[in-house]
């Protein structure tokens, strides 16, 4: 099913990603890790979006993963990687329960509920700290003794896993369920698709990866506090990146995450104006490329086929 060209493309991409730590500076490696973390978030959000649900709860599940991993380390002193995976696991379980209750809602109602979940969790965590007389921030040991290369390879493997999952979904029967629910839920139920079931499946898969990215967070930085992980901007980033790269496409969220993360980092050069410029670029991009980068390339290909060599 997969053409040879795509295989070669992915082969070299993975080789390149694998060699990256030996090619770039430590600062750029840090940015790369950040890019990979955003790829996981963007790809996961896109999986939920494929079923037509707008989730503003990315930060909620990110935080659940982060705090589960932290508490697991504090309480049981498990090895780091186990803590991180437990974070992903608990985020998936939480999303299953949350989804069973809330995924019968459609559109804006679901979006607002997920936003509320994030805020509720953030406040709860602050309360937990207050009640137990703990300082608000927690320090944890940095994974692999602070060797950024190993942290990079770890998050690279998770990122690849999320990308492979997304591509598998795109090629499977589930793709048809997701797309039909998104485009017309009543039409889909009429021909036998159980919308709640597939929305929950998408939501759980997505939350698992977001939870792992969350669990990675404290062990990469060595420090965690509620406001940092239950941060609405994590949810927003997870929405903007797929939108910028191409919503509902497989490659869109990846491209969006790479471009926007690097862009926002490079814009630091402009000091206080960086947010303004970042915002302007987003507005212009969405005005002129409403279907994102991938969508624009596709429509360019339809209009001017001679620009693109065959079978690209």
């Amino acid at each position, binding site marked *: 099913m997969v053409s040879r060209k795509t295989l070669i493309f992915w082969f070299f991409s993975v080789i390149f990603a694998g060699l990256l730590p030996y090619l770039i500076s430590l600062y750029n490696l840090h940015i790369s890790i950040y890019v990979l973390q955003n790829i996981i978030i963007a790809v996961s959000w896109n999986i939920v979006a494929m079923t037509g649900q707008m989730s503003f709860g990315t930060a909620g599940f990110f935080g659940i993963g982060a705090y589960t991993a932290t508490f697991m380390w504090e309480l049981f002193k498990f090895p780091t990687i186990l803590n991180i995976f437990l974070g992903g696991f608990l985020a998936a379980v939480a999303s299953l329960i949350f989804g069973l209750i809330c995924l019968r809602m459609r559109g804006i109602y679901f979006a607002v509920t997920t936003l509320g979940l994030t805020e509720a969790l953030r406040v709860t965590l602050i309360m937990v700290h207050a009640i137990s007389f703990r300082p608000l921030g927690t320090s944890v040991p940095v994974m692999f003794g602070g060797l950024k290369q190993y942290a990079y390879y770890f998050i690279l493997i998770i990122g690849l896993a999320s990308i492979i999952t997304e591509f598998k979904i795109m090629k499977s029967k589930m793709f048809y369920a997701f797309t*039909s629910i998104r485009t017309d839920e009543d039409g889909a139920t009429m021909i036998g698709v159980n919308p709640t079931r597939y929305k929950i499946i998408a939501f759980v898969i997505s939350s698992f990866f977001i939870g792992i990215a969350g669990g990675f967070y404290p062990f990469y930085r060595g420090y965690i506090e509620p406001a940092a992980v239950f941060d609405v901007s994590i949810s927003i980033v997870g929405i903007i990146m797929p939108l910028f790269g191409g919503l509902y496409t497989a490659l869109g969220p990846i491209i969006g995450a790479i471009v926007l993360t690097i862009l926002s980092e490079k814009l630091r050069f402009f000091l206080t104006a960086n947010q303004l410029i970042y915002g302007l670029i987003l507005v212009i991009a969405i005005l002129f490329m409403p279907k994102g980068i991938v969508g624009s390339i596709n429509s360019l290909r339809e209009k001017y086929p001679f620009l693109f060599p065959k079978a690209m």
Partner: protein
Amino acid sequence: MTLLKINGLTKTFGGLRAILNFDLEVKKGQIIGLIGPNGAGKTTIFNLITGFLHSDSGVVYFKDKKINNLKPYQICKLGISRTFQLVKPFLEMSVLGNVIVGSIYGKNEKKISLMNAEKNAIEILDLVKLMSKKNVLASNLTYGDKKRLELAKALATNPELLLLDEVMGGLNPVELSEFMKIIKDINYNGITLVLIEHVMQAIMELGVPIPLIPATHSDPWRPPIPIHGGHLGRSEATLGF
């Protein structure tokens, strides 16, 4: 064999009676046409059978199994499929993709692989004569083709009973005669059909018309009139009032 049996079906919408004590029996292999003025509750009956609405009272049996409180997708898996009057194609998918959804999640879910679903979908597109447009995006289809696609999606679920809600409304005479042929083919393949239709020519040619009465009428309705060979619009004299 009785495929579908409805007893005393009643539905009110906030005091407005849409359907009152409706009875219907459909035998395997029949084509039945529900006719009646706008607001008589024809589409409501379809919605009640397929689980989009829940009845206030009355029972619906499908092959002697009560299906009143099932969800639409469960009813679809039992072998009842329907089309909507306002067509509901999946606009962002190709025509073939639309039909594949039905093939995968219809009556045979779990047993069917993606490859076989695609084969099945292609057969159905052949039947409704949409083969030439299988890779076109559904949003780019003409109105007549969208109606065909709606029929193809419903057929792809492999139903025993197919409920068609005004599939022939708004078609030109050429499309209409093609569509009638398709419907006859479908029935010939062993699928029982219930049609809602305003195109009387089609109803008279295809099957048994059952007139439906607006439940809100204050007068008790006259017993069903035998209707033959013509339009409901004839003067009362010719109908023998």
